[in-house]
Structure formats: C-alpha cells, structure tokens
C-alpha cells in the first residue's frame, strides 16, 4: 500500500513538473530561436526552421551578422541614445517624483488635497490618448538654448525626456511608501531644527530603497521600450533610440533576417540579464502597476 501511494505521489510530482516544463518551453523557444538565428547566415537560418536545428548553435556559426548589422546602421549611436535618454529620465523621475511625494505626505500646504486628487485622476489618462496633441505642442514649444530662443522641440533629446519625467504613478508609488514611514522620525528631526530639504535627503530617501527600485525599474522599462513617441518626434539619425532604429532593417525589400536577429539580440540581452539578476524586484515592481486602479 505504502509503496503504491508513494509511486502515485512520485508520478503526480513528475506530471506537475512536466506541465511546468512544457509551458516554460513555450515561453523560451522564440527567444532561444532569436539568439541562435543571430549566429547563422540567412540561407542556413531559413533552412534550419525545418528542424530542431533552429534552436541549436550548429552549422556555419559566426558573429558575421553582428558585424554586418553594425555596418548597416549606426547601432552604437542608437544604443548610446537609448541609454542616455532612459538614464536621464529615470534619474530625473526619481528626484522630481519623490520630492513631490515627500511634500504631499509630510508637509501641509494650501491646496494640497485638491492637487493630489487631480494627480490621481491623471492616472487613467493613457499616454496613447495624448500623444497626438503633444506632438503639435512639441512642434511649437519654445526653448532657450545656446543660440538664444528657439521654437520647436522636434528632433531633440529633450522632447524624448522632459515629457516623461513626472507621472502620476511614480508620485503615487512614493506617496504610498512614505505614508508607511514612522512620522515621529520626521517630526523629531524637525524639532532638532533640520530643514525639509535635509530631512528629505538624509532621513527619508536613505530609507526608501525598495520604492526607488520599483519606480526606477518601471520607468526604465517604459523608456527603453518606447516606440510610438520617438517614431513621431525624431527623424534625425543621430538622436534615434534603439526601437526606432529597427526600421533600418525592416524597411528593406529583402529583410536581412540574420542581421535583424543580431540587432534584436543586442538590444534584448542586456535587459534580460538585468531582469534575471533582479527578477524578484522586477516582478514585484511590475505587479505594483496592476494595483493602481
């Protein structure tokens, strides 16, 4: 009897793992195919879709596609632009949004409640519904640059950064976190004569690691993966981010698939590595956006 039930349990366990692995294969195979294909010449890449070879690094393996892709398009420039735009926005978001949240939670000032409820209301405005009027605004906004007053933000870095610095969700995440911090701590520092700026810098922010990570990861994913906005506002090659740069490969009559796979791998692997090294934080962060309702 005991042996049978033991067998049963073993069998059931095996079935559970089989189900888990089967599903895992569905999620992995396209990405594995992408990475393997990037190492193969076009002709072999196409022939290999006939067999399991599609998922194996076999045959005429080389990094030739990578060199060719870098020759076809200034990929280094695109990557640099993406890093610059994403990095600048993430840093500015962390600063501006945490500062505003600090003010909302710890200070009392006239009009706070009204403004905070307006801020919460903006959470239901999807970016997709404001991009079109924002496009017209961007084409006519003034800017004071090195050559004095200029009109128009199109084809600049600033048009890819400044509109995305502050958003309701980032402020809201900080507010939620700050509300759970012990108020006595802040009031004690205040009694000791610390300025609000000092309390923000020396007391609150050092305690806010988790929410900083969450806000940073969300903004990073949003900015690095931006596609529609840069497509509309950037026509100059020198300031294009990576996702828009894909057009160099897909607008060809005969799409060079090996190079495409190489480019996709180049822009995806760093993000995946980042995710895998911090997967717990990533998953918790993305899950927190679902709760914003």
């Amino acid at each position, binding site marked *: 009897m005991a042996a049978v039930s033991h067998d049963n349990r073993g069998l059931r366990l095996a079935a559970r793992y089989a*189900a888990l692995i089967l*599903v*895992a294969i*569905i*999620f992995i195979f*396209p*990405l594995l*195919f*992408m990475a393997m294909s990037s190492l193969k010449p076009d002709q072999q890449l*196409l022939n290999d*879709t*006939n*067999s399991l070879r599609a998922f194996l690094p076999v045959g005429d393996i080389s990094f030739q596609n990578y060199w060719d892709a870098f020759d076809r398009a200034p990929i280094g420039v695109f990557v640099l632009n993406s890093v610059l735009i994403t990095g600048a926005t993430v840093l500015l978001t962390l600063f*501006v*949004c945490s500062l*505003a949240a600090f*003010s909302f939670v710890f*200070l*009392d000032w*006239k009009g*706070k409640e009204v*403004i905070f409820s307006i801020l919460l209301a903006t959470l239901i405005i999807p970016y*997709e*519904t*404001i*991009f*079109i*009027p*924002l*496009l*017209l*605004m961007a*084409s006519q906004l003034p800017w004071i640059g090195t050559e004095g007053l200029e009109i128009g933000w199109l084809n600049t870095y600033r048009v890819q950064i*400044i*509109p995305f610095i*502050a958003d*309701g969700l980032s*402020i809201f995440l900080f507010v939620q976190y700050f509300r759970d911090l012990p108020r006595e701590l802040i*009031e004690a520092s205040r*009694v000791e004569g610390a300025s*609000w700026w000092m309390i*923000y810098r020396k007391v609150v922010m050092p305690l806010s690691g988790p929410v900083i990570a969450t806000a940073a990861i969300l903004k990073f994913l949003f900015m690095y*993966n931006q*596609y*529609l906005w840069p*497509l509309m506002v950037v026509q100059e090659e020198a300031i294009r981010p990576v*996702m828009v740069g*894909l057009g160099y490969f897909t607008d060809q009559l005969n799409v060079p698939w090996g190079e495409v*796979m190489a480019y*996709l791998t180049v822009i*995806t692997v760093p*993000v*995946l590595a980042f995710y895998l090294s911090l*997967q717990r934080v990533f*998953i918790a962060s*993305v*899950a927190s956006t*679902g*709760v914003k*309702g």
Partner: protein
Amino acid sequence: MASKLTQSNKAGWLMAFPGIALIAAFIIVPFFLAFAFSLTNQRLASPNPTEYVGFDNYRDLLGLAIFTLEPERGENGQVLRDDEGAIEYPRLRTFTRNNPDYPQLDGKREWFSWQSGENRTVVLASDVVFMRAVVNTFFFVIFVAPVQAGIALGLALLINQKLRGINVFRTIYFMPVVVSIVVVSLLWKFIYSPGDGLLNNILGWLSFGLFEPRDWLGSTSTALPSIIAMSIWQGVGFHMVIWLAGLQTISPTLYEAAEIEGSNKWQTFRYVTWPGLRNTAVLILIVITMQAFALYAQINVMTRGGPLDSTQVFVFQAVVRGYERQDISGGSAISVILFLIVLAISLIQRYLTREKN
C-alpha cells in the same frame, strides 16, 4: 493633522512644484488640447488659420446610415437579374455621391449589408476603416480578454504550488514581459512566416505532417488572432503575477477548513479560491482591456492594419491620421473617443469592486 511642525506653504509648494508643473504641462494640457483640437480643423503645419468646425470630426469618424436598396425592375416591373441569377441593384454610388435627395448618405461607403426578401439593406459608414477598428477592439474586449485572463489564472495556479525550483519557472514565464513589444513583434513576424515558416513547421511536426501551412499574418481570418496570440504570449506573465498577488491574500486557514470538511480540489477552488479572487478578476480584465485599447506597436510592425483592414485598431488609426496625414484634429477626435471608453471602463471597475456595506 496639521500641526505647526508640518505646516509650511512655501517649502511644500516648492518641493511639489516641479512634479506638478511637468504633469500639468505634458499630461493635463495635452489632454484638454485633445478635446479642443477635435472640434477644429487643426493640422500639424498649415498656412491656413485653424477654424472651429463643431462635431464634424466625430461625424466623419462615427457617422452611420442605413439604406435599403430596391432591385432594378424591368419595364413590366419584374426584378432584373444578372447572368448568374443574382438580383441587380442600382449602384450605391449614385446615392452617396452628390445626390441632393440623400444628403445623409453623402460621402459614406458601404460597411456591410444583408438581404431581406428582394431588397438589400446596406449599412453605410463615414469611415469604414475606423468602424473596423471599433469592431476589432470590442471583439478583443468581449471574447479575448476573458480567455487571456483564464490562461493567466491557470498559470498562476500552476506557479502557486509549493515545489522545489518553482521560482525558476515563475522567472521564465514572466520573461517576455520585460522584452520590448517591438522586438517581440518582429521576432514573431518571422515565426509566423508563410509556407516554410517556423510555426508552420512546428505545427507540422506536432501533427505528423497533417497540418496545412498557413499565411498567418497574410490572411484576413488569421491575422488578428495571430497578433492576439502573440500578445498573450508576451503579456500573460504580467497578468499571472497579478493573479498570484490575489491568490496570496486568501487566508490559509480557509484552505485548512476546506480540507477538514473534506472538500475536493474543484470544490476548494469553487468555494474558497474563486470568491477570494473576485476583485482581482475585475482588475485583470480591466488591465487586459486597457492594454488592448493601447495596441499599436504590434500592428505597426506586423501588419499595418492589413490585410484588408482586418487588424485595424484605435491607436493605429489615431497615428495614421494625426501623424502620417498630419491631421491633428482627426487624430485628437480618435484619442478623445478612446479616452471616453477608457473612462467608462474605469467607472465600471469602480462599481464592480466597490465595498459592499
């Protein structure tokens, strides 16, 4: 709440100002501009001054008319038929092009029609392509969102087991969520290749050669489902995680009680798990629906709305008008319609998840 310690108008304003100003300038202002532009003929760049046009943009998008065509009749009143026996009707164009007797049909095109006796009833729309986008989006919301939510729930239950190494699987299932949708779309465009494409080949092996290769993105019947399947592949890990968060709020004592009562797996799910997931279920459906409304990159990379407008969606239409045709007002009108739908859905969500006293 307000005490001397925390009262500070100046510092409070100063610290909140950058965030508030940026949100006002780049979210709230364009939001109201969308409403304003949608009532004008604003273009991205135009030598002519912008004019107020009332609801013309909305009429151009949403205008509908029903019209009944009567058969052509011969001299003695008999119905005329063509060589194949089909009834002959007057050409629709004679009514929709500058016909002063039918001003309500002017400029409209046939959307769909049906036969009723000898007559043919035609539904005309000002913008047939936009109507396709509306239908596609609602098809998505009504049929696909529940299926997608169900798959995600299945995965969450699978991942919610106490097994060694379960975190590895959770990490894998979530992986596509962090990959750019543009990358995913391009990758799947290749996987969906017609003929000797990877998916056709895989389905061929799995069915021992019985499967007939398809042109997944090239045929009107499979293009939208293919894009949906890919979107599920990319996004289901995200929805799984939300379900998981919901599952973990259910008290373990309830499961213990169910076990003591001797309930089987299905009963436990039906009477313990599911009631505890009601709010999560509403939330997931909303999240999926909102994502469906925002659909753009997949369409632009994979099909550009084709074949035969079978994959048209709201945002793609807004971009085609507002950006590609530089018709800011038309694009804004679509944005406003999209926003009003999103707002309605949020209100429904509030209503469904309200606290019951």
